[in-house]
């Protein structure tokens, strides 16, 4: 009908045309031509019929072909090639969703991410910059170098992994970057806080990284959250020398308070400690008073 004609130039002309046409009602509806192609059913006439796509005589027509992969007796391809564990344990491997500096700059420029607040995985998920699926072995986000040349935002960002150049790009603009580990349960809570609060469970403490990641997160070069804080200024200077930029002094910055906020290793959310229960409907936070609970949650 009106939508199918290509002669009109856009919306206004189509609406003018619609005014002159009969009333659109249940009897006038049809899909666009070519939208519904009826399927070819076997055994029903000229092009689905006669031999019905089975060929002429033999195993093909009679449905007696050997199994898939059989090569007439020759050792088939799938047996002759030796096994190798390319995909072995793939479902136990940690995956980190890449976040390029270009994308981060894009989100900040569009106002989807607020650079005046610490940037967390929650902020990135709320801005729909990344989509993390903890159930698919995602362990978080890794910062990637693409767009490092044009990156010019001063942010306090916390990711799970970051390459050296990405760290350099953030620090060159006067920002702060930290890498932190989240176990899958904490990650799920971090990415979708509201469904978790609605469950009414107390906020759990974030688990410490597994053995193979401890070395990564205790290294100041990776700005790990478990690294000695006194090693970090040295590492910043080293990186500045390596990449050849002047390291800006963030202590003189007006946003120094915000830039220096870091999470406790056992904390999932800024401003909320493990053990607290958030009541969304009554807008209250319940804190534990029992000694044993307090000892557990502060350990």
């Amino acid at each position, binding site marked *: *009908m*009106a*939508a*199918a004609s290509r002669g009109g130039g*856009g*919306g206004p002309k*189509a*609406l003018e045309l*619609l*005014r002159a*046409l009969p*009333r*659109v*009602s*249940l009897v*006038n*509806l*049809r*899909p*666009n031509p070519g*939208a519904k192609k009826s399927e070819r059913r076997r055994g029903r006439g000229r092009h689905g019929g006669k031999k019905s796509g089975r060929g002429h005589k033999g195993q093909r027509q009679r449905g007696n072909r050997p199994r898939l992969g059989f090569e007439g007796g020759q050792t088939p391809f799938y047996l002759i090639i030796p096994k190798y564990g390319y995909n072995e344990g793939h479902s136990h491997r940690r995956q980190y969703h890449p976040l390029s500096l270009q994308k981060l700059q894009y989100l900040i420029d569009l106002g989807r991410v607020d650079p005046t607040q610490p940037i967390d995985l929650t902020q990135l*998920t*709320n801005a*729909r910059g990344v989509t993390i699926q903890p159930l698919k072995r995602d362990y978080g986000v890794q910062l990637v170098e693409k767009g490092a040349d044009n990156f010019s935002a001063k942010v306090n960002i916390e990711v799970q992994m970051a390459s050296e150049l990405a760290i350099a790009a953030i620090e060159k603009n006067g920002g702060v970057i930290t890498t932190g580990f989240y176990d899958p349960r904490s990650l799920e809570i971090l*990415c*979708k806080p*509201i*469904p978790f609060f*609605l469950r009414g469970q107390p906020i759990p403490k974030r688990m410490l990284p597994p053995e193979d990641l401890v070395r990564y997160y205790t290294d100041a070069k990776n700005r790990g959250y478990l690294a000695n804080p006194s090693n970090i200024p040295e590492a910043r200077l080293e990186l500045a020398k390596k990449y050849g930029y002047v390291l800006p002094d963030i202590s003189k910055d007006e946003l120094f308070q915000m830039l220096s906020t870091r999470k406790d290793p056992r904390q999932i959310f800024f401003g909320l400690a493990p053990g607290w229960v958030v009541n*969304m409907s009554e807008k209250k936070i319940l804190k534990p008073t029992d000694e044993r609970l307090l000892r557990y949650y502060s350990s």
Partner: protein
Amino acid sequence: RLLRGGTLQERAGSDLFCLCLLEKPPLVISSAPVLRGCHLAIPSHRTAVQAWVESLRHYDDRHVGLADLHPDVFAVMPRVDILHTVAVWQRNYKRISYAKVKTRAEVRGGGKKPWAQKGSGRARHGSIRSPLWRGGGIIHGPRGPTSYYYMLPMKVRVLGLKVALTAKLMQDNLHVVDGLDMPTFDPQYLADLAQYRRWGQSVLIVDVNKMPENITKAAASLKTITLVPALGLNVYSLLKYETLVLTLDTLAFLEEKLLWHDSRYTALYPFHLPYSDFP
């Protein structure tokens, strides 16, 4: 002759003639016109479309004011194929076909070989309930309750509503009313009003608020005029009824709800759970 028989026009004309004798003729343009501007921002490259605001208080109250309608709801591209998609979905997604026939295994009997393989002169058979036999099982028949449930993407259904509203407006089948206050609960008054104003064979009246008693009583006995709450508005009903009558509150409600989908993030979790950044 006018009491029984006579054409519909003649009968209606007589009633209105009686009404005319009883009441003062209405003002064509009232002294305080109701002007409704669009509450939500209109993109700068588009202008609002307009519709007369009418009233149900008098049979000829057709120019009570003027309403601005948002172009992204009431002047979208007339995608008739989307109307088709949504109308077909509305018909089919609730459908459960209960047809079920028995296969040869389910038909009672037929375990024993009817006669010996060789010697009887008749064709060879293994069971009296094979599909070749009269009373035998059916191959490839309908099997059990089948559901035809599927969901169209939310934005397609929203666009369907927008296209339907656009089509109604552009084809002069949309009427805006300032309220549903009626002077009487007589169904004949409503029917005559609809006919005088040439609204069409069937009218769908939509309101967000609770509807006043007069109109509910009047429409209850009428078959062609239906009242519907704003939440019950759907593409199938919009296409089935020839005319659509909206109140000003319904306009605001529809514009707000339908335009929200144009500029929202995708859902992280179901929309009925609370979000902090958008309603």
